[in-house]
């Protein structure tokens, strides 16, 4: 019981994710700044922002539904933190695992987006509401390709558990090559999920100020930002676990370092996209997801089914 509590609250649970999330935000901001020929923030900037926001006044709009308004940041944080518990970190085994945890992780990672919708909608500000509707509209576009890509990998490994997938791909590294199309599509869909450029439509500052977060301030905004950072590292860790399961047998220390490197590599790819693309329009984004990403993800499922057919022989 004591160990489990330690695992959940300290390492690799809440506290670790807190630090890692801030570190990832720093890496993201620094790389983004360097790509733009700027100096970028010092390493403690995300922490300083967080602390400063915590100390700021909480302003809740009169029109807003106070309960939902306060609950949503916490729920977003809870969703992304819980998802991390089922993702393998340094070994092939996650902290908790059972047959079907892929579905649970994907489900838990959808919760932050839903909270963005509800938080924005119940803020009752026109910018927040437009941002909220955009979040939700976008959700239906990027979730399908992302789910199908991860599903395709699971199909090939013949398991619904992330830990068992890690075991399978560690043993059969050659199969990873077939999943690379899925990796690319999943990465692009992830940009939509994390609301990063070119899919940062729900937060388009030149149109709708800050979208969902327009009315949020102080502690609640700090929590939302934190959950956003943690969602980024957890989703990156998920992609790393599914598509880059290298070095899982090297022991805890090397494995842990590799885990950090792999996750930050995906974060770096996200920053690269942020720096090199303009923001698409909502209709263009949905077109892109349904016309190109979804069929490509479907192709990935087909490829894996065919390979699996050969394996069975």
């Amino acid at each position, binding site marked *: 019981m004591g160990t489990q509590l330690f695992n959940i609250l300290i390492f690799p649970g809440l506290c670790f994710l807190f630090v890692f999330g801030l570190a990832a935000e720093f890496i993201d901001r620094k790389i983004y700044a360097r790509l733009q020929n700027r100096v970028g923030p010092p390493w403690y900037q995300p922490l300083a922002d967080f602390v400063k926001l915590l100390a700021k006044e909480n302003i809740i709009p009169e029109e807003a539904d106070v309960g939902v308004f306060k609950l949503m940041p916490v729920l977003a944080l809870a969703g992304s933190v819980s998802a991390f518990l089922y993702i393998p970190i340094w070994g092939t085994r996650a902290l908790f695992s059972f047959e079907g945890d892929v579905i649970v992780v994907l489900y838990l990672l959808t919760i932050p987006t839903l909270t963005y919708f509800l938080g924005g909608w119940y803020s009752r500000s*026109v910018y927040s509401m437009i941002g909220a509707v955009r979040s939700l509209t976008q959700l239906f576009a990027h979730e399908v390709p992302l789910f199908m890509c991860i599903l395709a990998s699971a199909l090939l490994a013949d398991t619904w558990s992330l830990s068992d997938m890690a075991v399978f791909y560690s043993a059969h590294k050659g199969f990873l090559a077939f999943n690379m199309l899925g990796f690319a599509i999943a990465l692009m869909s992830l940009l939509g999920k994390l609301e990063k450029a070119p899919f940062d439509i729900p937060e388009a500052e030149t*149109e709708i*100020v800050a979208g969902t977060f327009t009315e949020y301030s102080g502690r609640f905004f700090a929590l939302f930002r934190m959950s956003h950072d943690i969602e980024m590292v957890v989703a990156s860790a998920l992609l790393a676990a599914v598509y880059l399961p290298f070095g899982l047998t090297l022991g805890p220390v090397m494995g842990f370092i590799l885990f950090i490197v792999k996750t930050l590599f995906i974060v770096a790819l996200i920053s690269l996209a942020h720096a090199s693309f303009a923001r698409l*329009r*909502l209709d263009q984004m949905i077109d892109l997801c349904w016309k190109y990403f979804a069929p490509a993800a479907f192709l990935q499922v087909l490829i894996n089914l065919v390979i699996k057919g050969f394996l069975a022989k």
Partner: protein
Amino acid sequence: MHDSHNAGDVQVPIGPQHPSLKEPESFLLTLRGEKITSVDVILGYNHRGIEKACEERTYVQDLYLIERICGICSHSHSTAFVQAVEEIAGLDIPKRAKYIRTLVAELERVHSHLLWLGVAGHEVGFDTLLMYTWRDREIVMDLLATLTGNRVNYGINTIGGVRRDVTPEQAEEALKAMEKLEESTNYFIELASKEITLIKRLSGVGVVSNEDAVKLGAVGPTGRASGIQRDVRRDDPYAAYGELDFDVIVDNHNDVYGRTLVRVKELKESFKMIRQILKNMPDGPIAVKAPRKIPAGEAVSRYEAPRGEDMHYVRANGTDKPDRVKVRPPTLANIQVVAHMLKDRYLADMPIVIAAIDPCFSCTDRMISINNLDTKKKETVIWNKIRLMGIEHYKKQGIDFTELNKKFFMV
């Protein structure tokens, strides 16, 4: 352009305070989903009463006041004003002064267009472009500071010429800076023609056909991107433009992408002109002495500002203060086009469509107040009403443009 309001319509206030606007101005959008069904443009948040203030000050004081109409095309306004005053006073300014004015004018165009490119990038969420263009814009800003002593309000014009000469070392420095700028401009041209998300966001957005652009009176790059062959520098040469060899960039894309191309290509024309100016600059004095009191008379001066045609009207009454100063900045001519461009577009296109005319609201804001002689009341009027009053006024004098308008615009 009000449509009937449905229950599903949402009114979104863009401004007077909004992150996409650099100056306070209000656009009240009515949305159906993501589509814009109607736009209300409310001007006037930047009204400073500059025209009236000019009447209270001497011509030399006015020069500095006029320069502060705009923070970007400051040289445009001051040159347009000074040209009008010189015309009334009958001053023939030295050739070298004309060349220096043109040099600063073209450097100003370079910095204004680079600034616009960055703003356009920011409006479509492509901040990298903003950072790159504004980094390179520093080169021309520094150059302007070396030449004139200031980065923004150069204060180089004076009635009768210019206040500072260009030394051979400065000319050398300017030529070197042109090389650097030309290199980065080539990079931006390549970027604009290859970066797919940027092209997707810019092309087909804010379309104004050639006929509509003529009808709504679009000027500058906004008009030229809709195929209007009009540039004061060529059509009515002032300063040293008559002696320079340059092309007027015209594009037929009719959209924001076309406006981007026109501006980026105009940058290259500006580099070409600056090189010619530095090479052919004649020797001689840089100013002639101007009288303190300007003889009675009136003049209209036209000037191709980075944003389009800038027009100044000055009426002198023989004292050291002008009787009337009227400024028609390019944004006032282009603002009518914006409402036309926004209709039936998506909310996401709003920032870039507004930005695409390169608006300068503080140039534009004017107030017209009317003293009604019958009721002894003061009232303010909107633009359309003043336009109708103008038409009525000319009709009473027997001049009727209705038939002519029908013939040209098929209204």
